[in-house]
Every structure is written in structure tokens, then in C-alpha cells.
């Protein structure tokens, strides 16, 4: 739907704008990823609240991760996560073979070095969503061949 275009364009502009400002010396370089991730965190927190207003209580951690992979991902990116793996000890790997924010960029190894910039916001989104569901986590992402990417979630025991 048309809303998706707006978000895609806004996201790519955000990434471009932040990095352009950093290049012009207005801030330290490494901070851009942090800024994007923290923006994603705020959005994830808000979004998960709106989304789970009427859903039933989650049984356990795995249930929450399945919710993120299915309902949450479908609402945000119009498709489900293709593969969820876990070691049942707090580490989950979510694999998306056709990540919406990367499909327009390339289909292979071209521009691979720029891909992480476009994943920071989504890492924050996942971390924010989990945080408001009561789970503290660290989320990282890796890309080996666009547009497939993997998000690794490490649950932190409090």
C-alpha cells in the first residue's frame, strides 16, 4: 500500500541525511548508527504497545519471538520472517530472505558495505519491541548477500 512507500523513502532519507551531516563534521562518525538504532528503539516501543493492545498474554519467550517473526514483521514489512533459529538458551536468529529495506538497493554483493546502515533502524525496532514486552536484549544484524539478512537477538537475563 501507499503507506509503505512513505516509510521506505523516509527511512532511506534519514540514513542518507544523518551520514551526510556526519561527513560534514557535525558529529562523530560512529554515532550515526547509534542514533538510528535509538530512533528505532523509540518507534519499536510505541509500535508494540499499539499493536498488542488486544492480543492475549504471551506464554513464554519463544512465543514472543514467534509473534515478532509473524505478526509484527507482517505488519511492518508486509511479509513474515523466513526462518527462525534458536539455541534455546537465549539466542535467536531471524532470517529474512528478501528484506524490504534492501530490495531496492541491490540483489547480490553490490553495495554490501552500505547495507549495515540500513539495518540499524530495524535492529532498534526489534530491541524496542522486545523491551516493552519485558525482554532486555541486544540485536545485531548481518548481511552476506542482499537482499537477505539475519538479525541476531541475544536475550539478556536481568
Amino acid at each position, binding site marked *: 500500500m501507499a*503507506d509503505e512507500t*512513505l*516509510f521506505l523513502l523516509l527511512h532511506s532519507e*534519514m540514513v542518507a541525511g544523518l551520514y551526510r551531516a556526519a561527513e560534514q563534521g*557535525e558529529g562523530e562518525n560512529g554515532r550515526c548508527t547509534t542514533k538510528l538504532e535509538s*530512533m528505532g528503539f523509540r*518507534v519499536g516501543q510505541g509500535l508494540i504497545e499499539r499493536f498488542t493492545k488486544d492480543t492475549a498474554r504471551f506464554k513464554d519467550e519463544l512465543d514472543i519471538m514467534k509473534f515478532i517473526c509473524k505478526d509484527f514483521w*507482517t505488519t511492518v514489512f508486509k511479509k513474515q520472517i523466513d526462518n527462525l533459529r534458536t539455541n534455546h538458551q537465549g539466542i535467536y536468529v531471524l532470517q529474512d530472505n528478501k528484506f524490504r529495506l534492501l530490495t531496492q538497493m541491490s540483489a547480490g554483493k553490490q553495495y554490501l558495505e552500505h547495507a549495515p546502515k540500513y539495518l540499524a533502524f530495524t535492529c532498534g525496532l526489534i530491541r524496542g519491541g522486545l523491551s516493552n514486552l519485558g525482554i532486555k536484549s541486544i540485536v545485531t544484524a548481518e548481511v552476506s548477500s542482499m537482499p537477505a539478512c539475519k538479525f541476531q537477538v541475544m536475550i539478556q537475563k536481568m
Partner: protein
Amino acid sequence: MSRSPGRRQEIHKISRELFVLTYGALVAQLCKDYEKDEDVNAYLDRMGYSIGIRLIDDFLARSAVKKCRSYSETTDMIAQVAFKMYLGVTPSVSCSSAMGNEFSLILDKNPLVDFVEELPAERASLCYCNLLCGVIRGALEMVHLAAEVTFLQDRLKGDAVTEIGITFLRKPEDRKHKR
């Protein structure tokens, strides 16, 4: 699919909320980075411009509208088709000059500020929705219509409605020359 229509509406709504929330997080981050309101406003306008020059392609592809023959038709198109398509609201259009090149869009419901109650006291001259101005300006420029777009009234600053003013920069007579 076993989705009921109610569920689709909900997904649609949340999709839009994603955009609104992301925009809010962006403005909050910019307020942290830049001290002066004018800098934030200028940044949002530039961002909006870059988005607008791409959005116009998407708009034309989705709506397949015919060529507009006058400035007022163009403004109507923006209000009734584009706004409806992307933000789900239809502002009302009014022409505010005898020359026929100044128009204003009056929004009584602005989805971008759904989650904003009020501007903080130290940010009194922040144009929260300045992105919209840049988007309209960029989109119009890509169809060869130079225009100035600004906020004339803003509900967040205490006015009754939100009003966006579009001023087309070329005289109407130029458009009458058909090749």
C-alpha cells in the same frame, strides 16, 4: 487468506502509525542535534524535498492521473488524490489570490501530529510538519512547476487549523502558450 476486513484495516492503520512514529523519533533526534529551530526546519525541508522528488514517481505510477491544465487543478489533485493516498486525509483547497497562483490547503486533521500534544516551550518556532512542505515542493518541481510551500497556520502553535500555502512561481499567462 483467513484475515477479516477488520484486521486488514488494523494493519493498514498500524502501517501508517509506523510512519508517524518514525517521523516523531526523527524530529526528536534533530531537536537534540540542532539547537536552533530554523536549522531543524531547514533540515526537515531538505529531507522532504529529497523524498518529494522520488514520491512523485510513485504517485504518478499509482494514480495514473491525466495532465493538469491549471494551477487550481494541480492543487486539487494534491489535496484530493495525493494526500488521500499517502496520509488518508483530504484537505480543503482555497485560492487566496486574484492572480490564480496562490492556494492554501487547510487540514483540520493532520495525521503526522497524532501523537504530539504540544510543542515544548523552548521549541516554539519549530515547524513540526515541515517535511510536508519539502515533499510538495520537490514533487511539483519534478513536474516542472516551481513553487514555494510554507506553513501559514499551525495547530501545534495555537492556530485553529493547519494551513499550508502553495505559491506557484510562474505567471499564469506563461502556461497559456501552447506549443
